[in-house]
């Protein structure tokens, strides 16, 4: 067993910023990530972010990612890539497994004084006839293929879901050279921001509301060849006789994200079901600390939001850790945390942000 002062699990925007804020104030920080490259979802996000200048609006996710990696290096954050946290056991012990699937794996137990869980989220799937056929995939998988691996996931694509991920990824698939034949949305209204929707509509991609997918058709050899879609009634049930067939080779699902919170639950941190934030998640206070002292949570694993909020929540956790380890005076820490909270509140505006703000406030209240 090895020992560390602070261990951050997950090197997305939340984990990176937590590690940077703690290391900047001289804490000894180990950051682990199961991927071969740190950055989490950021390197897929080739679009410009919203918000005021304090929120780095107009900057692309990929560029924020590069800056964070440089900062982490500058402040001496130790990073273990290709290293997955498989368990979190009593008294803050983390089990990790290292190496790729095609190599011999090794295991290690790390005992940490402080832990940040910043594992992000996983995509929700929806089940329909034929949904397991090759060619049906998460929107995130298609985004990863196009933007990270620079390979087209398909030529003719149908997107299911018009939330921000569905809209943004549709646009990015067009940019990569694919044809997006349409975006389906079961609800009567588009789920994501109007600007993102307008962008793809201008590019000639129709968005069909009150419409769902009922079947993916194809064969054992080639996977998807057709998508059967149908209008839905007020109760979201397909209306018989309204089926339509699209010839597509790929169907991408953007049906929302849910927090990856298994590690927190495994350690016995109290969790609750909060639909506005993606489902089950560990409760936390204003320091992002869970019900188990010394275990913090930040970013999507603390409730699904956006890259900017993940960054700020990570910073909160990082500062709080430095404070509780005695690297920063609590007066100074309070004023820094207040500044961050002001920025976070500024991000939780608008119809989407407000419901998340309300949910977050409730979490913090129940906690007290």
């Amino acid at each position, binding site marked *: 067993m090895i020992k560390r002062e602070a261990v951050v699990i997950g090197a997305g925007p939340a984990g990176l910023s937590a590690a940077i804020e703690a290391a900047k104030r001289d804490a000894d920080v180990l950051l682990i990530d199961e991927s*071969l490259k740190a950055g989490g979802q950021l390197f897929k996000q080739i679009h410009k972010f919203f918000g005021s200048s304090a929120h780095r609006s107009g900057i692309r996710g990929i560029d924020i990612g590069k800056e964070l990696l440089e900062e982490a290096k500058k402040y001496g954050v130790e990073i273990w890539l290709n290293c997955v946290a498989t368990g979190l056991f009593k008294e803050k012990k983390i089990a990790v497994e290292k190496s*790729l699937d095609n190599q011999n794996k090794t295991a290690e137990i790390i005992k940490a004084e402080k832990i940040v869980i910043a594992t992000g989220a996983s995509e929700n799937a929806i089940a329909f006839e034929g949904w397991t056929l090759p060619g049906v995939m998460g929107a*995130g*998988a298609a985004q990863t293929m196009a933007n990270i691996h620079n*390979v*087209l*996931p398909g030529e003719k694509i149908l997107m299911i879901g018009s939330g921000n991920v569905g809209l943004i990824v549709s646009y990015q698939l067009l940019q990569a050279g694919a044809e997006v034949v349409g975006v389906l949305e079961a609800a009567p209204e588009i789920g994501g921001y109007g600007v993102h929707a307008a962008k793809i509509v201008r590019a000639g991609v129709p968005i069909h509301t009150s419409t769902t997918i009922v079947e993916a058709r194809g064969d054992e050899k080639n*996977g998807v060849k057709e998508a059967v879609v149908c209008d839905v009634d007020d109760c979201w049930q397909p209306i018989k006789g309204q089926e339509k067939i699209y010839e597509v080779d790929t169907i991408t699902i953007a049906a929302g994200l849910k927090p990856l919170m298994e590690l927190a639950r495994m350690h016995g941190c109290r969790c609750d079901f909060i639909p506005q934030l993606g489902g089950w998640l560990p409760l936390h206070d204003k320091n992002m600390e869970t019900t188990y002292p010394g275990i913090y949570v930040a970013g999507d694993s603390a409730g699904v939001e956006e890259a900017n909020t993940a960054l700020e929540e990570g910073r909160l956790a990082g500062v709080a850790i430095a404070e509780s380890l005695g690297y920063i005076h609590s007066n100074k820490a309070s004023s820094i945390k207040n500044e961050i909270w002001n920025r976070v509140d500024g991000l939780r505006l608008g119809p989407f942000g407000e419901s998340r703000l309300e949910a977050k406030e409730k979490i913090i209240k129940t906690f007290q």
Partner: protein
Amino acid sequence: MPDRVNDHPILGDTTRKETVNITVDGQKIESKKGEMIAAALFANGIRINRYTIKREEPRGIFCGIGQCTDCAMTVNGKPNVRTCVTPVEEGMVVKTQYGVGEREKNDD
């Protein structure tokens, strides 16, 4: 056939020059250095990675980030390798996986 994205409006020239040779079910395939096995397969028009044990149904990538195991294949004799998060290596032997796969003898 899905293709590589070599000229991107935001990312610019994304051409990967260095190539790596791998074998997929006995067929030689050219892949790019540093890319994941699943990406190399996609670029070569292959999107079935394995067949399930009970109903023998085909599976291909679903999450693309190592969470779902739908993309598992047998790599250099080792089954259950998630090809979406395992990079190609020169001379790699990749095989479609049937069921849970079987570890081949020459593998340590």
